[in-house]
């Protein structure tokens, strides 16, 4: 995932430049399809358009957190064998978590707006909303842990353990919250009827998922490279320090 030779200090490579252009075009087309081309829902009216961002976002958020967990597991396995190896897994874990948090945030905001329009209230103690907000806060904590100054390997292991626990916790949280809400007597406020998704709406949603995935991948690639550059900067500063200390007394 490293950019082309010669531009070691850039985050873009020819391939990702193309990806970037595709991502912007895809997002524009998505706006066109979602806001203008696709029809309003019979029941929910214009609010249904929120769906085209809401659904892909939660899928990206979960996907990114799974990617964080898998990278963290690989990092733990690699770093056990030889110290200082497998750093790229750690970087990918961090980049994916950042993007995941952003999309979890988008999910929450669109979900709340949608709720306001369809349920008449921003927040319902709906199982999925509650799980998502807990997930969002969990990964904010993960990012806070990552940001703390520490030896890179130590920080990597520490955050890898947290990423693994967090992903193990997702089904536990989901199960318990879901169970809590379903066993609870149903809220008097009836949960709005789900819109029938067919025809143009179905295709728009499918396309939006693709478009958001492209945007998210592009973001992850660039965040990965920024993290790598930060590490490179630290390493070069350190090497210069070592070199100057070695010269000092000669």
């Amino acid at each position: 995932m490293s950019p082309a030779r010669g531009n070691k200090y850039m985050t873009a490579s020819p391939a990702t430049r193309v990806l970037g252009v595709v991502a912007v075009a895809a997002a524009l087309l998505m706006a066109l399809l979602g806001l203008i081309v696709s029809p309003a829902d019979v029941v929910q009216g214009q609010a249904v358009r929120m769906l085209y961002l809401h659904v892909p976002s939660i899928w990206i958020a979960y996907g990114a957190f799974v990617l964080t967990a898998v990278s963290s597991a690989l990092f733990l396995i690699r770093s056990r064998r030889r110290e200082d190896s497998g750093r790229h897994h750690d970087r990918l874990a961090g980049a994916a978590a950042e993007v995941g948090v952003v999309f979890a945030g988008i999910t929450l905001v669109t979900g709340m707006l949608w709720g306001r329009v369809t349920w008449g209230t921003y927040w319902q103690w709906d199982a999925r909303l509650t799980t998502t907000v807990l997930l969002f806060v969990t990964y904010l904590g993960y990012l806070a842990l990552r940001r703390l100054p520490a030896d890179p390997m130590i920080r990597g292991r520490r955050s890898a353990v947290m990423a693994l626990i967090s992903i193990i916790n997702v089904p536990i949280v989901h199960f318990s919250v879901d169970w809590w809400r379903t066993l609870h007597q149903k809220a008097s406020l009836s949960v709005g009827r789900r819109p029938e998704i067919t025809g143009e709406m179905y295709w728009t949603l499918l396309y939006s998922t693709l478009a958001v995935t492209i945007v998210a991948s592009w973001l992850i690639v660039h965040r990965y490279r920024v993290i790598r550059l930060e590490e490179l900067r630290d390493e070069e500063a350190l090497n210069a320090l070592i070199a100057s200390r070695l010269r000092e007394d000669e």
Partner: protein
Amino acid sequence: MSTVVDFQKVVAVAGGFPVLAGLDIEITKGEIVHLRGSNGVGKTSFLRACAGLLQIQNGDATVLGFDLRDDRIAPRRYIGLLGHENHLYKDLWVREHLEFRAAAVGADQHDVEAALQRIGVSERLWAVPIERLSAGQRRRVAIASVLVGRPQLWLLDEPHAALDREGREVLDEILIDAASSGATVVLASHERDLSKSVTSRVVTLRGGRLWEDSGAA
């Protein structure tokens, strides 16, 4: 004579700074090495690297026959470390603390009283919370905690700090005894003429590297 510590071009980093920058040093069994140098030259870092607490980034480091780049946990049980901090539970009584430390390093509980007596912590203080001790008395309890473990390698960071003259003399005796029974001692201090009679070798660090070595006595 067997080598206890063997560092070759060791580089170690702490807080983004190369605290050891190509350190070469060899210490053999039975030596009492006085590590010298002004603040920030890497004395503490060298001791922590020997103890396996500081990761070696570059170079080769062997302590008590263990290659630190392969395993920096295994040698720890043979090492007694006294840092800047005393590693004391201030809420515990002196004796309770020592008994815990002895159990934690698998030492004999009977050695606890002997160690306290040896370092000169008077018996009336044994059932007193460490919190109430003076700085010098705490330092003595900390030294006793190292003593009960009967380490093969003593790593002492400014051990004489806070000790009175009598305390320093007792510590010197303990170190001489340890060395003569086959242990190795490395003590860091920036005081120039500290315990000349005790140390068999004076090593000066500068900029994370070896600067001056008096050689084995």
